[in-house]
């Protein structure tokens, strides 16, 4: 499947890719975006099956991206990898349609557990 990684940190995008590999999910196709606004363009051109997104980003946050996608009728599977791990953020993420929220620092185990319910994500 095709996975879009959205984070304003280039290092974090590389770390997430590495963690996907360590979690047994290195065989997927990956593309990247550096904020929510850029992600909208990439989603339009690449049609990913899964979006993995940071929360706090300049120009457009992750939750704003998710809300915009759902408002436009785009039901792409979506999850957060973020330093925001409080209960209210988890509730907001779930209410907006996110399948998971993994708190940073992400580990192979935490990512693998979060990806289990994602459709088509078999190792």
């Amino acid at each position, binding site marked *: 499947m095709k996975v879009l990684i959205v984070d304003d*940190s280039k290092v974090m995008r590389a770390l997430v890719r590495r963690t996907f590999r360590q979690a047994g999910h290195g065989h997927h196709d990956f593309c990247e975006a550096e904020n929510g606004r850029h992600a909208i363009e990439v989603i339009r051109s690449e049609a990913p099956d899964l979006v993995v997104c940071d929360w706090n980003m300049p120009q457009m946050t992750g939750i704003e991206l998710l809300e915009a996608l759902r408002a436009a009728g785009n039901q792409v599977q979506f999850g957060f990898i973020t330093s925001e*791990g409080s209960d209210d953020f988890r509730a907001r993420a779930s209410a907006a349609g996110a399948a998971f929220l993994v708190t940073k*620092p992400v580990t192979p185990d935490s990512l693998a557990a979060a990806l289990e319910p994602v459709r088509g994500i078999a190792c």
Partner: protein
Amino acid sequence: MLTLEACSDAVMDAARELSDAIGLGPLGVALRDTAAPPGVVGGYVAVVSPRSSVQVGIATTRLSAARIGALMLGLDEDDSGLEESELQDVLGELANILAGGLKRRLAEQDGGLELGLPIFVDGRFEVSSPREACVQRIGSDVGDCWLAVYVQNAAFGGRAR
């Protein structure tokens, strides 16, 4: 109201969690320091609420920052020739994760905390308004790092934000 001790303990705990996650190895005992030495670089994130204003930072040498970046990216230490933008990115992301860890650990004490975006500082970081400060020096496999926490509560008479 957040205390300096609670914030410092939360950041230290977050640092150990981060170190485990990126494979940095066990951190040394934290030693109180007056400030990070001259010549270091650092990443800082604000964590603010209507009641409190906290700055969380991590500072280290450029060499140590490059080594941490190599760890995060899975590079060989000998190949860790990070560009300046990547170095800034590494420190900003480290500060972001530490700040998020502080927020998560202190959510019961102050549920209104919000994270800012990271900033990179090349040189000495100083705060001008009255606030409590704690700088802790910790050893690691890649060299010493300094964890900085600056806390200002509304009780200090300044505006939290």
